[in-house]
């Protein structure tokens, strides 16, 4: 487009130098955290030479990595399922049906974005305690799902709106119920939207720090971010940087892999929103 056509190969050298430099700046901290997690440091699990001693420290800390990772996984999977379920049904209704109160409900859903996390977490802490859901992973997942709703519902609505109506009408005439139409005809067409919503929900839940910090007081229930943050100061106030970076690597690798795997859909999900503007 604009920048590309006018410059010769020689003229584009500064472009490659600039973008290459930027790419290094963006990659460097990620590569460094892995390097720091395996390099030796005094009074950590990795004293001599390179190795995975810090990962062992991380593995054994608190409830142990299997429990902590399982907590993170449960919160994330529940959040993805709840968010996809609610936003698919809601998005379909907002895109394809007319009913009383529709615009008001959609605006109300979007208005969740305007409310600070902290404003809702304090009463939710009290509410979940009263409901017997204190220290419950389900409670945390419900909470995170709620904050995903504005983006998820909006995304699913524009995804459904982008499908030509004829597709749906012919299915309807063929005798499909509205739910059958949604399940068999519409869902396959909104895969980029579903993947985008699911990925966002996963990343938000896997990485959430504030909700578990407040809603989970039992150390056995804590997910990765809170556990790694707690792990920093273990022995006599000496900060174990190596183990912290090992925790960072363990937290980040699943996110980066998922992101790379789903990138195609994720960017397309965004683009389909673009056309609607």
């Amino acid at each position, binding site marked *: 487009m604009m920048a590309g056509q006018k410059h010769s190969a020689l003229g584009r050298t500064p472009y490659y130098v600039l973008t290459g430099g930027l790419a290094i700046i*963006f990659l460097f*901290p990620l590569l460094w955290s892995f390097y720091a997690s395996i*390099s030796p440091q005094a009074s950590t699990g990795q004293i001599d030479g390179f190795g995975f001693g810090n990962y062992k420290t991380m593995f054994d800390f608190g409830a142990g990595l299997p429990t902590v990772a399982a907590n993170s996984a449960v919160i994330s999977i529940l959040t993805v399922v709840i968010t996809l379920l*609610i936003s698919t049904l809601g998005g379909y209704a907002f895109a394809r*049906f007319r009913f009383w109160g529709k615009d008001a409900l959609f605006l109300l859903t979007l208005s969740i974005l305007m409310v600070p996390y902290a404003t809702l977490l304090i009463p939710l802490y009290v509410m979940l305690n009263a409901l017997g859901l204190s220290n419950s992973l389900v409670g945390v997942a419900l909470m995170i799902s709620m904050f995903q709703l504005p983006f998820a519902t909006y995304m699913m609505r524009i995804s459904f709106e982008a499908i030509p109506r004829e597709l749906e009408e012919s299915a309807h005439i063929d005798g499909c119920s509205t739910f059958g139409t949604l399940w068999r005809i519409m869902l396959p067409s909104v895969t980029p939207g579903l993947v985008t919503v699911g990925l966002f929900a996963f990343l938000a839940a896997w*990485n959430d*720090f504030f909700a578990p910090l407040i809603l989970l007081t039992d150390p056995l229930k804590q997910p990765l971010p809170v556990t790694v943050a707690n792990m920093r100061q273990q022995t006599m106030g000496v*900060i174990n940087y190596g183990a912290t970076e090992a925790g960072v690597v363990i*937290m980040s690798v699943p*996110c980066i892999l998922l992101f790379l795997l789903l990138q195609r859909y994720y960017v397309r999900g965004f683009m389909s929103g673009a056309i609607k503007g």
Partner: protein
Amino acid sequence: MTSPSISEAAAAQPPARRFRASLRRQLVGFAYTIPTLIFILVFFLTPLVLVAKMSLSKYGLLTGDEGFNFPKNYVSIWRNQLFWPSVWFTVQYTVLVTVLLLGIGLGLALLVQTVSRWSGVLRTVFLLPVSVGLAAASLLAYGFYSPAIGPISPPLEALGLIDGPIPFLSSSFAALLSTTFLVVWKFAGFYMLILTVGLQGIPDDLYEAAALDGATPWKLFRHITLPLLRPSLSLATILCVTGSLLAFDQFFILTKGAPDNTTVTAVQVIYREAFQRQNLGTAAALSIIVLIVLVLINLLQFRFLRGSERD
């Protein structure tokens, strides 16, 4: 797919049946939103009402509701020594982060808009930190900025450019800049994505026509790109301002308010009030104030950004 006999039957429905069908369709549509509605009622509206009610009472973390005490919680905010500095700090942080993220996000979006394999790779690289969580990124930065294992100072020391490790977090100003760098690194790709989407919505022939008229690249940018990018820039501004005003993780993990409570954000004050000073009533009052300010700022932004669209 369509079988003619059924479609003819559908067209031949009498009006009364069609009305009933449309009512049915309304109900079906509404039914699909019931999960959304329940979620909003239980996890959004009820807590909002509850937090408003809590802000009017003496409400201990362990003791529960100890009775109506309005306006004591709100008055105590006025006297809270952390509150006003935290507001000022949060505002500074928000302005700095928003200006940098929008500027750099737009710069990156312009850099990757050509269609080539290299720009695809670049886009992926810029988006990688977005997939890393904010807490993880803050913990990464905790080591990255530390004198113990930080990678920036040693080579500079070896070259004799500095005498000791760079104090990334030891003054309030340094901590602000270091945290801003972390946040820009983590979120720049996200804003690049939003603005790339906006850039791709601008028709190419506009540029071509203007270029034929002899417009310079700067003029193209100033008179075509920027005005047509306004909707995406507005969205990016609103997301960035809201997110920054509610900053918590990065400061809670990285600076913990150090040095001397000079890097405390508004949400951190709420957290302290609720879970360290165990005063949910005051924390609720603070939350209400933050909520009102945020709604006002967002309304102002909507009005401002939409208003200037008409020029």
